[in-house]
């Protein structure tokens, strides 16, 4: 784990990408790799805890987070205006691995966010993005690679993914989608890495509220993950946040 760094930084922009999806861009130079996350906070003592949000993008003089507005914390983050201050702590966790070979990136809904850094890193990767109602963030992927497949609605994005064509598949999305993908990958040569989600308190491995069970013992989503290789954690451990 990289040493955590605490920053109070200014908001550059906070843009609504879809009815409940925002991209928050914050000023400064930040460390962070694809799949890692920061703990964000722009309030005093309510809500109690900071919010773990995966890195969407890092560039010269900024870091960006894409998040879905699901409760009080994300509502407050969505209300930030340019020039407002936000607290960041991180980066935390183990992200997607550095590999060489044929790679597919498979994202579902909000789960497309942490894959964008991977798309920047692996420009030859084939990208599959599935959305239930509205697509968002797709043009950014299309700027990086011409191989972007998108589905919206009932059609599953997994229908387009042929695992035998890849050596590595990086995925993030609803746990049922990840589980279905894992079944599809079984028996092929492809190695599947997925980003998991769980409520966190400390964000750095001390409190054990984000522990999940696996065949070789418990894993902390915040410190050992959020990216795990398929099989490292039990599927039913990911059902409840």
């Amino acid at each position, binding site marked *: *784990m990289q040493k955590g760094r605490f920053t109070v930084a200014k908001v550059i922009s906070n843009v609504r990408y879809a009815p409940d999806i925002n991209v928050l861009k914050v000023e400064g130079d930040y460390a962070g790799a694809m799949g890692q996350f920061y703990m964000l906070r722009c309030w005093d003592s309510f809500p*109690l805890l900071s919010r773990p949000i995966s890195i969407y993008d890092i560039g010269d003089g900024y870091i960006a987070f894409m998040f879905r507005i699901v409760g009080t914390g994300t509502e407050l983050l969505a209300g930030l205006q340019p020039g407002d201050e936000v607290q960041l702590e991180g980066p935390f966790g183990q992200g997607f691995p550095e590999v060489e070979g044929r790679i597919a990136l498979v994202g579902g809904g909000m789960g497309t966010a942490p894959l964008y850094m991977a798309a920047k890193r692996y420009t030859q990767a084939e990208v599959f993005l599935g959305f239930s109602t509205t697509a968002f963030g797709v043009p950014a992927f299309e700027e990086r690679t011409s191989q972007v497949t998108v589905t919206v609605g009932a059609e599953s994005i997994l229908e387009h993914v042929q695992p035998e064509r890849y050596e590595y598949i990086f995925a993030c999305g609803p746990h049922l989608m990840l589980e279905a993908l894992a079944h599809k990958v079984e028996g092929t040569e492809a190695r599947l890495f997925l980003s998991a989600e769980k*409520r966190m*308190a*400390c964000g750095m491995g*001390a*409190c054990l509220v*984000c522990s999940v069970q696996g065949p070789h013992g418990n894993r902390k989503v915040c410190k050992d993950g959020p990216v795990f290789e398929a099989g490292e954690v039990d599927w039913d451990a990911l059902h409840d946040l």
Partner: protein
Amino acid sequence: MHSMTCNIAGVELKNPVIMASGTFGFGREYAQLYDPGLLGGISGKGITLHPRAGNKGSRMQETASGMMNSVGLENPGVEAFLRDELESMTQWDTAVMINLGGADIEEYVKAASIINDACAAQRREGHRTADMLELNISCPNVKEGGMQFGIRTEVARQVVREVRMATALPLIVKLSPGAEDLTAMAVMCEEEGADGISLVNTFQAMKIDIRRRRSAFQQTYAGLSGPAIKPIALRMVHQTAQAVRIPVIGMGGITSAEDIVEFIMAGAAAVQVGTYNFMNLRAGVELISGLEAWMRQERVQALDEIRGIV
């Protein structure tokens, strides 16, 4: 010259701020952010005789001004703790409490004597070792044991008595706010030779997932902590401190230096800080400097001047 020093069972703390069990791991993670040697003490993640995988399903829900947890004493077991963690935990210049949980008396006693032997051996070899044993008879999140010892005074007496015989370490008993008679429980600990008590552990609480029409937690109930419980915790510490002569370590929802002052005025010898570590990863150092600033401003030279004055 302001002095924040406290004395708990013969152990000198440089200040009254102890990190509460379960919120600080064994110190390694926070040590990347600040020097744990600045703290008064650390109470380690609760350990048990055998390794425990902890609870399945959701382990945490946020509440208004608080959080509920249902970790279920996930820990590597006493042997692995002594082998892999104790040396690291005692590297910092701070008081170290080993927090011990258990499912039945035999487990508590066995683990306590293993810890006692290991600490004695370390001391014989001239190494630093743990300073205190914090006996957790109050974990609400394990099905068997834990909580039931925390409720009934006479059930708890047996555990305290036998663990007291099994260890030469200063013994602190951590009480549950769910005790049927809290002051009687505290007096019992004193009678059985405990060197101090700490309270409160989390309050047993509940969250229902209305969409799925079941508890949000697989163990049904979970432990509530954070600012929401502070006024009740403070009242309990006040009542307890008046009932016993041994030191009382107060905790429950502390998020500021002023909160620490309240607990000390209520009679606490020192305090523990738990949930605030999650709200502010540098809680420990900020509370200590805040307390120092308060003492300077109020011209309080030593905490004894205000301890138990209410």
